[in-house]
């Protein structure tokens, strides 16, 4: 903030011109002397010509319904480090019944600004003399692209205070609003001029604090404003940033683990034949227990992966090995089912399962082991089922990587969905919604 300018503002005593309303005799003031073109009488609502020495009556508005502004005309407040006085208030609306409120703010050193209020949402507007680049339905302004949000006509329903142009109830204009939250740019065309104004969303509490407004006349925000910044946008961005770093770390650890893991085959058993059941199809065959030769597991406290494969076809095999420590006689069960089904139904081929299956058991102590294996087969087992077993010590567990990444993704995806839902709700009142299916 410019300190010198601020001190000067505190010291200013704007020249106020007082006069009597030629319609009702009430005493009226003009704050922006020399700039104000029209004044509306507080008492009789007559619109007066401020440029006329006799304050000619431009319009009698005695029947105009009174609207109470949230910021009363004459209230001063500090926004952006500058003091502003509300000198004019208008209620405008469209043919659909929407009504919004516009407050004209004035500072003798900084000119005019507008505060726009709709459904309790506020936007700070300043007239733009840089014309935006019109391309298609959207516009570009100072390097940013703004999307068309509304287009239509508006009418003035109520006026109060003073204005730098002739304004009265019933005035009509064509408007277009373009948004790039938290910014908006508006185009307005009346019978004698075209103007562009650039606005920025302001939190309602900021207005309330700036003008020291009381709760009872201050509108509560309803719904989502066209240019209201999405709280989820930044949060989703942050979440994906953290996800990225965590994913890089986890993938790095996985690659390191894959490169340094022993992945040593400690046992292999090929082509073990299981005969089909003598009881016919779809019956389970309980085979004998098979004991393998012994093998050694060296590394302390490592995991052990069992890889099983079988030539099952529309059938299953249940391989139930017990990994037995030769010295202690203690066993670790490692059951695994290999099943594969396929067919043709509903005009489509389908398949389920596969010929290979693996499982990992963790924390296997070093020692000499053998396998004690029982098998069962079922399904369409009209011919022999062969299976192979392989034991590999110290393998990286890929499922850990997948599960970790899925766990990490839950929050960013949730935030992304919230962000999307916010945008859909924002655009639900627009005829130009990018989310519309039409």
């Amino acid at each position, binding site marked *: 903030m410019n300190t010198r300018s601020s001190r000067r503002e505190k010291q200013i005593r704007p020249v106020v011109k007082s006069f009597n309303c030629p319609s009702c005799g009430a005493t009226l003031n003009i704050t922006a002397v020399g700039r104000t073109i029209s004044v509306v009488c507080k008492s009789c609502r007559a619109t007066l010509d401020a440029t006329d020495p006799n304050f000619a009556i431009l319009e009698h508005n005695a029947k105009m319904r009174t609207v109470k502004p949230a910021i009363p005309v004459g209230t001063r407040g500090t926004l952006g480090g500058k003091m502003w006085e509300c000198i004019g208030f208008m209620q405008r609306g469209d043919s659909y019944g929407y009504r919004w409120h516009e407050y004209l703010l004035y500072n003798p050193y900084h000119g005019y600004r507008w505060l726009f209020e709709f459904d309790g949402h506020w936007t700070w507007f300043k007239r733009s003399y840089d014309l935006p680049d019109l391309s298609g339905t959207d516009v570009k302004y100072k390097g940013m692209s703004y999307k068309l949000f509304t287009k239509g006509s508006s009418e003035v329903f109520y006026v109060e205070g003073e204005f730098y142009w002739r304004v009265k109830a019933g005035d009509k204009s064509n408007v277009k609003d373009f948004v790039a939250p938290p910014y908006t740019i508006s185009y307005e065309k009346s019978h004698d001029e075209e103007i562009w104004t650039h606005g920025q969303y302001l939190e309602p509490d900021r207005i309330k604090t700036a003008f020291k407004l009381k709760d009872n006349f201050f509108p509560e925000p309803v719904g989502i404003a066209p240019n209201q910044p999405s709280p989820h946008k930044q949060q989703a961005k942050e979440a994906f940033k953290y*996800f990225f770093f965590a994913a890089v770390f986890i993938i790095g*650890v996985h690659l390191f683990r894959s490169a340094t893991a022993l992945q040593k085959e400690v046992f292999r058993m090929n082509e073990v034949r299981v005969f089909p059941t003598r009881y016919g199809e779809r019956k389970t065959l309980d085979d004998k227990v098979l004991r393998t030769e012994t093998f050694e597991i060296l590394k302390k406290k490592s995991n052990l992966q069992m890889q099983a494969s079988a030539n099952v076809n529309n059938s299953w095999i249940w391989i139930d090995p*017990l990994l037995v420590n030769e010295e202690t006689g*203690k*066993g670790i*069960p490692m059951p695994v089912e290999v099943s594969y089904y396929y067919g043709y139904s509903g005009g489509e081929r389908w398949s389920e399962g596969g010929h290979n299956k693996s499982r990992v*058991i*963790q924390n*296997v102590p070093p020692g000499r082991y053998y396998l*004690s294996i029982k098998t069962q087969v079922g399904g369409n087992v009209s011919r022999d089922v062969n299976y192979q077993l392989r034991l590999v010590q110290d393998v990286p567990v890929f499922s850990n990587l997948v599960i970790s990444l899925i766990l990490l993704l839950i929050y960013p995806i949730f935030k992304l969905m919230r962000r999307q839902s916010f945008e859909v709700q924002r655009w639900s009142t627009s005829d130009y919604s990018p989310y519309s299916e039409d």
Partner: protein
Amino acid sequence: MYKYICIGVCAVYTYLALTGRSYFSPSPTRTWAQKGQRAIFHK
């Protein structure tokens, strides 16, 4: 908040990766092998 979830998941993943453990494989149930039969003596 999410930052700490990321740190937690990374820490858990690193522990699992370096010890050869996995999320869903508990420590194996110990049973006794006896003459090819499986006695269900859980430790």
